[in-house]
C-alpha cells in the first residue's frame, strides 16, 4: 500500500468554519482604520505624537507580557518566551495602545503616558482574565485615570488666539455663538488649525476609518450611528429651543472626541451589548450621557466617561429577561418613550441652566 492508513477521528457537527473570519483580522482592521488619524497626528505634532504613540503601545505590550510571565511563574509553568494568551499576535494590544495614545493631549508628560497605559491594560483587561473578559475598555480606563489623577500636567497645545479647546470654551459659556469666531466648522471637520487631543481633531479622517471598518464588517455600525445621532438630536433640540441655529449640533458632533470615541472606543465588541437592539440602545445611552456631561456637567468632555459608565451596564442590556435577537414591537415602544422623556429632560435642564 502506497499510503499510510488514515486515522478516522470523531468530532461534533458542524465540521466547516467560515473561511477568513478570525479575531486577528478584526483587530488588524481597527489598527488599519486608525492609520490615517495616526498619520495626521504625527504630521501635526511630529516627534511629540510619535513618542506618545510609541510609549503607549510599548508600555501596554510590556505590561501584558510581564503579567503573563508572572502568572506562568506563579502557576509553576516552565518559562516560555512566547505565551499563548499574549495578545500582541492578534493586534488587540496594539489597537488598545493606539486608541489610548490618540486620545491624549500633546503636552502629556512621558511618565503620565506610561502610567495611564499600564493602569488601563492592567485594571481594564488583565485583571478580568485577559482578552474577551474585560468589562471596561482598557484605553478609556487608562485615559480617564490619568485625566483624573494628573489633569493639571496635561495641557493642550493652546493657540494664542483661541485660548482653549473648542469644548472647553463651550463648557464655560454654554450657548455662546462666539466660539465660532475661533473655530470655523471647516477647520473642525478637517482638523487643521485647531487644538485638541492628538488623534481626535480631524473628523474626516476618523470617518474615513469608520467607513473602512464598515466595509470590512469589522465593527458594529449601529453603535456610532446611534451615538452620534443621539448627540446630534439632543443638540438640535437645544438649538431649536434656544434659537441657536444649525452650527450648534454640528459643533457638538465635530468638536471634542465624540467621533473618535463613537467609532473606535464605543464599538469595541467586547465591551458592548450583543444584540442588534441592545447595541442601538447602548449607543443612545452613550449619546445622552455625553451630551448631558458636556452641557450640564463640570467637565468639558464626556465621551470617555460615558463609555466607561455604559460599559458597566452592558450586562444589563444583555439580561436574558428582556434581551431579544430581534427588535420587538414592545422594545420599539419603550425606546420611543425613553427618547421622548430624554428630550423633555434636556429642555427642562437647558431652561434651568439658562
Amino acid at each position, binding site marked *: 500500500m*502506497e*499510503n*499510510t492508513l*488514515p*486515522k*478516522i*477521528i*470523531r*468530532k*461534533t*457537527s*458542524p*465540521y*466547516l*468554519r*467560515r*473561511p*477568513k*473570519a*478570525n*479575531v486577528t*483580522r*478584526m483587530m488588524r482592521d481597527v489598527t488599519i482604520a486608525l492609520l490615517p488619524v495616526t498619520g495626521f497626528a504625527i504630521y501635526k505634532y511630529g516627534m511629540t505624537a510619535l513618542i506618545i504613540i510609541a510609549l503607549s503601545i510599548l508600555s501596554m505590550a510590556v505590561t501584558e507580557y510581564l503579567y503573563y510571565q508572572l502568572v506562568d511563574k506563579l502557576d509553576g509553568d516552565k518559562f516560555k518566551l512566547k505565551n499563548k494568551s499574549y495578545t500582541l499576535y*492578534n493586534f488587540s494590544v496594539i489597537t488598545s495602545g493606539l486608541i489610548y495614545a490618540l486620545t491624549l493631549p500633546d503636552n502629556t508628560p512621558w511618565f503620565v503616558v506610561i502610567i495611564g497605559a499600564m493602569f488601563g491594560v492592567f485594571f481594564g483587561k488583565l485583571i478580568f482574565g*485577559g*482578552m*474577551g*473578559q474585560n468589562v471596561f475598555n482598557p484605553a478609556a480606563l487608562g485615559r480617564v485615570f490619568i485625566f483624573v489623577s494628573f489633569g493639571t500636567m496635561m495641557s493642550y497645545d493652546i493657540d494664542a488666539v483661541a485660548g482653549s479647546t473648542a469644548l472647553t470654551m463651550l463648557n464655560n459659556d454654554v450657548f455662546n455663538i462666539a466660539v465660532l469666531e475661533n473655530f470655523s466648522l471647516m477647520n473642525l471637520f478637517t482638523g487643521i488649525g485647531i487644538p485638541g487631543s492628538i488623534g481626535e481633531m480631524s473628523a474626516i479622517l476618523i470617518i474615513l476609518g469608520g467607513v473602512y471598518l464598515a466595509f*470590512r*464588517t*469589522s*465593527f*458594529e455600525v449601529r453603535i456610532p450611528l446611534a451615538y452620534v445621532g443621539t448627540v446630534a438630536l439632543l443638540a438640535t433640540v437645544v438649538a431649536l429651543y434656544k434659537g441657536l441655529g444649525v452650527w450648534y449640533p454640528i459643533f457638538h458632533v465635530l468638536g471634542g472626541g465624540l467621533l473618535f470615541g463613537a467609532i473606535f472606543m464605543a464599538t469595541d*465588541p*467586547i465591551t*458592548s451589548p*450583543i*444584540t*442588534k437592539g441592545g*447595541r442601538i440602545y447602548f449607543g443612545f445611552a452613550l449619546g445622552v450621557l455625553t451630551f448631558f456631561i458636556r452641557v450640564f456637567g463640570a467637565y468639558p468632555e464626556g465621551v470617555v466617561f460615558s463609555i466607561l459608565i455604559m460599559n458597566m451596564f452592558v450586562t444589563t442590556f*444583555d439580561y*436574558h*429577561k428582556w*434581551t*431579544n*435577537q*430581534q427588535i420587538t414591537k414592545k422594545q420599539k415602544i419603550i425606546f420611543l418613550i425613553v427618547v421622548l422623556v430624554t428630550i423633555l429632560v434636556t429642555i427642562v435642564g437647558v431652561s434651568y441652566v439658562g
Partner: protein
Amino acid sequence: MIKKSRKVRDYKALTKALPTLRYLNPPSVFIHLQNGRCKTYDLTVKEGDHVDVGEQIGVRHGGFFEQPVHATISGTIGKISKKFHRTGRKVDCVEIVNDHKDILHNLIYDRTDEEIAALTQEDMVEIVKEKSLVGLGGSGFPTYIKLATKEKINTVVINAVECEPYLSSDYRLILEHPGRVVTGLKYIMQALKCDNAIIAIKSEKDPLFQVLTQVLRVRFPELNVKVAKLGNHYPQGWEIEVFRWALGIEIPHGELPMKYGVIGFNVSTAVGVFDAIKHNMPVIKRYFTMTGDAIKFPQNIRLRVGTSVKELIALCDGYIENAGELLVIMGGPMMGTSTVSDDVIVSKTTTSVIVLKNVDYKEEPCVRCGSCVYSCPAHLEPVQIMNAVKRNDKEVMKGLEAFKCIECGLCAYVCTSKIHVTDYVRKAKIKLG
C-alpha cells in the same frame, strides 16, 4: 466580522454535474434492525433462509409505531452483527448475502392508474405504513403519521432545497427522475385532498427549475404545482424556513405545520411514496452522495439500502494519499454525525457520506462580536447560552430559550473566534432536558 451571515460555501461543484453511478449489486447488504427511533425488534427469518427483494424480514418496535423491515436484495440471511448507525451508535444489523438473481417478492406488483385513482387517504396510509416509509431527508419520521393527518391541508410543500454543503443527491434525483417526484407528489395531494403544491428549490439551482417546469407543463398539466425558487442561504432547507419563504407562513416553535394548512415532504420521500403506491415497493434503493475533500473521486451513487460504506469508498478510488486524520460524516457537514470508523452502513435515511480532512481550528477567546446572534435562524443568542452553560445557569438557559435550537451549526460556522458554539448550545439543550 460582525455581520449576519447565512451564506455557507457549498462545495457542491464536486459532484453536482456528475451523472449518477449505479451500484445496485453489492456482494451483501446489512439491514439495520434498530435505529434512532426504534430500540427493539423481532426478526421473522433465521440464518440460512432465502429472501426476495422487498420481502418483510422482521419488525422494529418504536415508541408509538412499528416499522416492518424489508430485504433490499434477494439472497440468504447471514449473521447478526453490530454496526454503526447514522445516529453514531452501534446497532444490530442482519446480513443478507446477495445471490445476484434480484428476484422480486410476489407482493411487489404495479398498480394501474385506475386502481390508484380509487385509493382513499386511509388506503394510502395503510400502504405507506406497510412499506415502512419514513422521512428520507434524514428525519426518519414515519411518513404515514404525517399522511394520516385529519387537518385540512391547503398546500403540500416538497422540500428540494438541500441547503447543506457538499450534498447533491436530491439534485441528481430531480434531474434524472423528475417524473417520479411529481407523481409521488400527485399521490400525496390525492391522499390529502389538496389542490395546491409547491416544490421548493434554491434559486441558484436553475436546472431543476427548468426540468420541473417542463415536466409539469408537458406531463402533468392538470396539477396545480408551482416551482418556487427560494433563497440561497443556509438553513433554507429547514422546514419552517421553507414555509416562511415559500408561503409567508410563520410557524411558532413546537407547533405542527399541519395546523396551519401546510405539510412538508422531502423529495426523496415523495419518490418513496411513488414507489410504495405505484409499485407497492418499500425503499430498497436510494440516491446517495459520496463526497468530501479527502475522497479521490467524489460520486453520486444510486445504491441498495444496506450497502457498506467501505465498498463505496473503494468505488470512489479510496482516500487521498497521506490524508492524515479524517472525518467520516454521515449526512451533511453542518448537521451530520461523525463516526469513528468507515465500517458504516447506508440506511434509508442516509443522504450522504462526507469524508473530510480534519482541520483543527484554533479557538480564540470570544470577542462578543455577535455574529452568532445576528445569524441564528431560530432567533436565539448562542453566545449568551454558551456563557450560561459555562456557569451552569439553568434559569438563564431557559430564559434564552435554548430548547428552540435546531442545531443547524451556523453559530459555530460564523464564529469569528472559531469557537464551537453549537456544542455549548447542545449541552444547554441536554441540561434543560
